[in-house]
C-alpha cells in the first residue's frame, strides 16, 4: 500500500462524506484532503458540520455515505480504537481527563489501551519517550500530580502528550484555543508548527479567523454541512472567509466607543471591596471600581481570576455576610454590602431593574423543559402576582423578531431550539423589562456569527438608552470590539483599566499579570 502512496498525495482524504441524523444531513458530500506537514483549518459557524466531520474521522460517528481514504486506501474507521491504530489522534475541546487521577495514571491508561498484554510491563518502555515529550512540550509537572492541580494550559499539554506517545500522522484539534488565555495562543501555535515539521498532518477546527489567517496553511469553510470554500491561506483573506462562513456579506460593526464623561450617574460601585470565599481558592482583594450609566464595561482576564466571583457578590450579597468580606458595594445608589454585611438578599437584587446572563446557560439561566412562557417567568418581573398572568404574546413575538430567532414558533420548549437560539432567548428575557444594568458572563460563547452580532447590537442599543452593560469575556476580539472600558482581572485584583484606543498587545500582557 505504501507503494501507491507518494509523498505529495494526501495522507487522509475524505470523499463525498455524508452523514444523516434522522432526516437532517449534518454533513453533505464533503471532500477534503489533509497533507503531511500542513496545518489545515476547518472553519464554519455552529452547526456547520465541523464537529460531525471530525467525529467521523476519529471513528466516533459512522458516515452514512462516502469514504475515508488513508494513505491511498479506503478504510472504515469504526471506532476511536481503529483510528488510533491508523495513527489518527484527536484532542477534544472538552478535555478527556479524570480530575482525580494523576498525570502518570493518564499516560498509563493511554499506553495500556493500545496494548494487548493487559497492561503488564510496556509502560516502562515509554518512560524515556515521556520525558522527551515533556521537555518538548515544556510540561514541567511531576508525573504524580493530580490532574485537578494542573492549569488549563498544562491540561491541554497533557492531552497533546497523550496523543504524541504513538507518533500520530494525523492530529485533530477541536477548538484548541477556546480555553487558552491570549498569551498562550501564540505559544500553542508555535508548538503546532514544530509538530507540523515532524511531519504531521494537522487539522484544527475553529471559528477564529484571525488565528486561521496567522497560523494555518490551508483552510476549508463549511456551511450547513457542505464545503463552501477551499483555499491555501496565503491566497485568501479574512473577509472572503467570513463571507463564506455566513453566506452573506456581514458588516462588522466597528466599535463606536462611548468615552466616559465625568458627571455621569453612578450605577454600580465597589469601594475597597475584599472577599474571601472558603470554597473558592481565590480571594478578591481591594476592588475599587465604578460603573456609570451608558457604558459597556468588560471584566476581562483569563477565566478564574475573580471576574465571576465579583459578579456573584453583586447578585448574592448574602455571600458577603460574616468576616470573609470587607468594603462595600452600591447598586443604583443603595448599598448592597457594607463592611461585611449584606443589606439585600439575592431575591431582592433580582427584583431590581437588572438583567443577568449566566455563563453556563442550562445550569444557571434556563430550563430546557420549560416552554417559552415559563422561560420568561424565570425573570421575577414576569411573575409579580400570586396568580400567573399569561406572558404577553407580543413580548414573545417582539423578542423573536428582534433577535431573529428561528424557528418562528412559540409553542416550542426552550430545549427544542439550538444552542445559539437558546442564548438569544435568555438574553431576550433578561432585557425584556428594560433593565438599567445588564450583567452578562461570556454572552457569545458558543453562538454563531450572526447571533453574536445580534447580541452585541443589543448591548449597544442598551447603551444608547443610557443603560449600562457589564460583560465578562476572555476573548480579545470581543472585548476590543464591544467595550468602552476594560477592567483586567488578575488573581482577584483589577490590575489595570484600559480606555480606548485599546492595545491588544498590552491587554494580552495584562491578562498574564504584567502591567
Amino acid at each position, binding site marked *: 500500500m505504501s507503494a501507491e502512496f507518494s509523498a505529495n498525495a494526501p495522507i487522509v482524504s475524505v470523499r463525498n462524506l455524508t452523514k444523516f441524523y434522522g432526516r437532517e444531513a449534518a454533513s453533505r458530500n464533503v471532500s477534503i484532503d489533509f497533507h503531511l506537514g500542513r496545518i489545515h483549518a476547518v472553519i464554519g459557524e455552529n452547526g456547520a458540520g465541523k464537529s460531525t466531520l471530525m467525529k467521523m474521522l476519529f471513528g466516533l460517528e459512522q458516515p452514512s455515505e462516502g469514504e475515508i481514504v488513508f494513505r491511498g486506501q479506503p478504510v472504515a474507521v469504526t471506532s476511536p480504537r481503529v483510528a488510533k491504530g491508523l495513527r489518527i489522534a484527536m484532542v477534544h475541546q472538552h478535555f478527556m481527563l479524570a480530575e482525580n487521577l494523576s498525570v502518570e495514571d493518564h499516560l498509563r491508561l493511554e499506553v495500556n489501551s493500545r496494548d494487548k498484554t493487559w497492561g503488564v510491563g510496556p509502560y516502562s518502555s515509554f518512560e524515556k519517550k515521556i520525558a522527551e515529550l515533556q521537555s518538548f512540550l515544556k510540561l514541567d509537572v511531576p508525573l504524580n500530580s493530580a490532574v485537578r492541580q494542573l492549569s488549563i494550559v498544562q491540561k491541554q499539554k497533557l492531552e497533546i502528550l497523550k496523543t504524541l506517545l504513538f507518533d500520530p500522522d494525523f492530529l485533530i484539534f477541536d477548538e484548541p484555543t477556546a480555553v487558552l488565555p491570549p498569551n498562550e495562543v501564540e505559544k500553542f501555535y508555535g508548538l503546532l508548527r514544530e509538530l507540523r515539521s515532524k511531519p504531521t498532518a494537522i487539522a484544527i477546527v475553529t471559528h477564529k479567523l484571525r488565528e486561521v489567517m496567522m497560523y494555518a496553511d490551508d483552510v476549508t469553510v463549511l456551511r450547513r454541512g457542505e464545503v463552501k470554500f477551499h483555499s491555501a491561506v496565503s491566497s485568501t483573506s479574512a473577509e472572503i472567509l467570513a463571507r463564506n462562513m455566513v453566506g452573506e456579506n456581514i458588516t462588522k460593526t466597528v466599535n463606536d466607543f462611548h468615552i466616559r464623561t465625568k458627571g455621569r450617574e453612578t450605577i454600580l460601585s465597589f469601594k475597597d471591596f475584599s472577599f474571601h470565599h472558603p470554597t473558592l481558592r481565590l480571594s478578591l482583594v481591594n476592588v475599587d471600581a465604578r460603573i456609570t450609566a451608558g457604558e459597556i464595561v468588560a471584566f476581562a482576564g483569563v477565566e478564574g481570576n475573580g471576574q465571576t466571583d465579583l459578579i456573584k457578590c453583586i447578585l448574592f450579597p448574602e455571600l458577603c455576610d460574616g468576616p470573609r468580606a470587607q468594603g462595600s458595594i452600591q447598586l443604583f445608589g443603595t448599598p448592597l454590602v457594607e463592611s461585611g454585611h449584606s443589606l439585600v438578599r439575592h*431575591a431582592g437584587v433580582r427584583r431590581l431593574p437588572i438583567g443577568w446572563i449566566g455563563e453556563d446557560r442550562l*445550569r444557571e439561566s*434556563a*430550563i430546557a423543559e*420549560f416552554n417559552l412562557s415559563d422561560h420568561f*417567568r*424565570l425573570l421575577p418581573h414576569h411573575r409579580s402576582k*400570586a396568580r*400567573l398572568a399569561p406572558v404577553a404574546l407580543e413580548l414573545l413575538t417582539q423578542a423573536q423578531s428582534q433577535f431573529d430567532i428561528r*424557528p418562528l414558533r412559540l409553542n416550542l420548549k426552550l430545549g427544542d431550539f439550538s444552542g445559539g437560539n437558546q442564548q438569544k432567548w435568555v438574553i431576550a428575557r433578561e432585557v425584556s423589562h428594560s433593565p438599567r444594568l445588564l450583567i452578562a458572563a461570556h454572552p457569545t460563547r458558543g453562538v454563531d456569527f450572526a447571533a453574536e452580532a445580534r447580541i452585541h447590537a443589543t448591548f449597544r442599543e442598551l447603551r444608547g438608552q443610557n443603560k449600562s452593560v457589564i460583560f465578562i469575556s476572555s476573548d480579545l476580539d470581543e472585548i476590543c470590539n464591544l467595550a468602552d472600558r476594560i477592567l483586567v482581572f488578575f488573581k482577584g485584583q483589577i490590575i489595570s483599566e484600559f480606555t480606548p484606543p485599546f492595545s491588544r498587545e498590552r491587554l494580552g500582557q495584562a491578562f498574564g499579570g504584567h502591567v
Partner: protein
Amino acid sequence: MKRAFYRYGIAAITGIGAISVLCLFAHESPWHVVQILLNTSLGEPEDLSVTLFYATHLMFCATGLAVAFQAGLFPIGAEGQLSFACLTTTMVAIMLPPTYFSLVIVLVTGLLASTVLGLIVAYFKCKKGAHEVITSMMLNFIVAAFANYMVSHHFQSHSSQDPETAIIHSRFWLFPSIFHAEGSPANVTFFLAVLACVAAWYFLEKTRPGFEIRAVGKSKSVAQNSGISVERIYVLALGISALLAGFGAWNQILGYAHKYQIGFSADYGFLAIAVALVARNNPLAIIPSSLFFAILLKGATGLDIETDFITRDFVKIIQAVLILMFLVLQKQRDKSRAEAEARRT
C-alpha cells in the same frame, strides 16, 4: 404505520404476553383473569364502592406526592402521614364531646397532624441537609410504632378482639356514603379527592408558588438564580404534600370506618408513588391513574378468592409488569412526538 407498530405494538405485546404467560403458569386463562379482575372491581355496586374508596385514598396521597415530586423531592412519607392523620382524628373525635365546635376541630386535626410531619421532613432537609427519603421513611416507622402504642395502651376498643379503637360518635360521621348500601366504603370524599387533583393542577400550572415549585424541580440552580428561595419552596411543597395525604383521614375515619384500625392501609401511601409516576406527576392524570390502580387493588382480592393459584402477591407481579409496560409506552409516545416536532420544523 409500520413504525407505530414497532413503537407501541412490541411494548404492548411483550407486556400482555408476559402477563399471559404468568397466568398460564398459574393454570388460569389470561382472559378469565381479566374477567375476574374487572368483575370483582367494577361488577357489583359493593365492589365499585370499594374500588372508589381505594381510588380516593390513592388520589389524595398521589396528588400530594406529585406536588413534592414536581419540586424535585422524593418523600415517601405519605403512608405515615395518612396513618398519623387518621390516628389523631380518631383520638380527638373520641375525646371531644360531639359539639359543632369539636366538629371543626376533628376536621382540622388530621390535616394539621400530617402537615406537621411534612414540615419535620422539610426542617431536616433545609436546616440539616438530611435527605427526605430517609427522614420521611423514618417517620413512617415512628408513626406506625406510635399508633401501635396509642391503640393498644389507651384507645383499644373493649368490644373488639382486633387492635382498633372504639367507634367515634355518629355526629362525627361527616361524609355519607355514595351508595345506599349499609357500610359501603365509598363516600363523598371521593369527589373531594377529584377536586383536590384539579386544585393541585391549577396550583402547579397557574399560580406563582406552583411555578416556583416546578422551576426548583427542574433546576435548583436556575431557580435560585431567578430569585426563588429553594428552602421556602421545599417547605411549601413538603407541607402541601403532607396536607393532601392528611385528607385521607376524612375518607377513612370520618367517611367510612369511624375508628382507627391498626393495619387499615393497603399501603396506599406507597402505591401512590406508582400512581404518581404513571401519571407523570400531573395531578389531572392522577385521577385515571388512581382508578386504574384501585381496580388492580380491588381485583387482587377477587383473584385471590376466585382462583386456586393466583394470590394477592401474584397480582403484585402483574401490577409491576403493567406499570413497566405503561412507562415504555409513554416513552415511545414522547419519541413519536419529538419526531413529529422535528419533521415540522
